[in-house]
């Protein structure tokens, strides 16, 4: 029971991170119908910006921790959003209206480019940071001394994700930007005819997705304390799995999918085998694609004659 509870906590915090990344996939898919394979690497850039930020703050003698975290979050979000904008502007926009595979190939190229760029600039070795937020609550203890911990870091991850989800859901449902995004999703030409700047709406979608991925990157850096240039690939593919599982194109679906993947991974690692936890996550992708390709919250595509 105690062991189960601990895995639940671990799974939820991991799942929140996948969910934040998955939103970027699902939003971009919703609006332009392409899988942005560079999104995982955008998240990796966010993680590196966190390393740079925390190291820089350490160098100048440190700050009050909440302030330091807030500062790093903002910096990472702004710069990562800029990366997201640039990627869309130069790798995808020129290919809009080209055949369907072109932006996909461009995305894979962009992913390789970003990985190698970070490897060159930052080096291939794992970058550690000193722990930023330590400690936590001991929730309960088993007779044999096993304790269930809820660390402050996990609380931060889960709460921050929850807050961002609410802000984001409001944005999509209630604001002019959200409405124009939904309009572009449904009919881009008609959206242009009522005066929506479709290109700018798509750019903003990438910017928002990248900013959310940056939050995930900062959280992961603080959670695990290490990053390298390759983390984007695995996290990206898992978040993509989460988006597919939840129903690609659906925003709550991405969040639910992310949390499910996090839970499955945590429980699989705990009860079966930690080495094969990635296998578990990807088996889910295969099963989802075979039995429910439109995902949990997605609608099945109706073939129109």
């Amino acid at each position, binding site marked *: 029971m105690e062991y189960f509870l601990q895995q639940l906590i671990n799974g939820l915090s991991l799942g929140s991170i996948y969910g934040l990344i998955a939103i970027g996939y699902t939003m971009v898919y919703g609006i332009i119908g392409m899988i942005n394979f560079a999104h995982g690497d955008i998240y990796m850039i966010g993680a590196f910006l966190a390393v740079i930020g925390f190291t820089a703050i350490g160098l100048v003698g440190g700050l009050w921790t909440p302030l330091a975290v807030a500062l790093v979050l903002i910096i990472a979000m702004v710069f990562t959003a800029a990366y997201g904008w640039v990627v869309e502007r130069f790798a995808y926009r020129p290919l809009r209206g080209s055949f369907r595979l072109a932006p996909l190939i461009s995305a894979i190229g962009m992913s390789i480019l970003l990985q190698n760029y970070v490897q060159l600039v930052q080096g291939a070795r794992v970058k550690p940071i000193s722990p930023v937020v330590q400690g936590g609550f001991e929730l309960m203890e088993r007779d044999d001394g096993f304790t269930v911990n809820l660390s402050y870091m996990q609380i931060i991850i889960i709460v921050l994700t929850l807050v961002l989800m609410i802000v984001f859901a409001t944005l999509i449902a209630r604001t002019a930007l959200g409405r124009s995004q939904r309009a572009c999703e*449904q009919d881009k030409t008609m959206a242009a005819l009522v005066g929506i700047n479709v290109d700018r709406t798509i750019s903003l979608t990438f910017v928002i997705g990248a900013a959310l991925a940056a939050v995930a990157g900062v959280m992961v850096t603080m959670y695990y304390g290490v990053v390298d240039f390759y983390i984007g690939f695995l996290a990206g593919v898992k978040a993509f799995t989460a988006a597919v599982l939840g129903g690609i194109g659906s925003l709550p679906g991405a969040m639910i999918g992310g949390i499910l993947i996090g839970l499955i991974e945590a429980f699989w690692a705990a009860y079966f085998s930690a080495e094969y936890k990635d296998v578990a996550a990807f088996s889910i992708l295969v099963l989802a694609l075979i039995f429910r390709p439109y995902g949990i919250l997605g609608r099945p595509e109706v073939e129109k004659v």
Partner: protein
Amino acid sequence: MTTPLLHVEQLTMKFGGLTAVDAVSFTAERHDITAIIGPNGAGKTTLFNCLTGFYRPTSGALTLTHDLGEYLLERMEGHQIAHQARVARTFQNIRLFEGMTVLENLLVAQHHKLMRASSFLIGGIFKLPSYRHAEEEAVMLATKWLEEVGMADKADWLAGNLPYGDQRRLEIARAMCTDPRMLCLDEPAAGLNPRESAELNQLIKNIRDQHGCGVLLIEHDMSVVMNISDHVVVLDYGKKIAEGTADEVRNNPDVIRAYLGDDEEEEA
């Protein structure tokens, strides 16, 4: 003499070897309903597509002049034509945002105003007073148009679930919410019954009389054309074959031939 609202000069649109619109020139006045008629394939919709930035004309000039300035439509992007030159249109096959509510469809049309008020993002999330004010105004305008088209009780319906006639009227209301100076209607009466068609005539006349908005109309339903248009332009195989008031056009031999065929064919 004042400059006309729309001045089309020598407009030509070619698709490869096919000339869909061939050197067509006409003008449309500010307080007029100008109907564009012609047999199938005459180039009417192509003309609309050039006006609204769907196609870039092969040659020719499209000049729109109104209180906000003078616009050369053939050089502008689609979304600029909508929010700067203020041209709005509807489609032959209805194109609403079906997954959105009726009210949202009308708010999307006022996107520019709202985006500016929301400082492109921040104001919208935190509901700053300036944004709230702009949104209230937008909802008021939307409600006004819903009343005008007689759908005030259906604001929260999903657009895709509306009956056909309502969808047609909603499309016109949405176009009007962009605050246009010229409204292009592509077969608005298609699929409507005679009563709905008569209501539509009244609606289009109101738009001309009360909102200072010129109307350009493609229509096959001759009762609509003859009843409400002030000026008729007839196209056939991409060329303008006649122009004038409804009565003048009705008795024009070229028009009769285009619609009914030559005499020999008729005898056969």
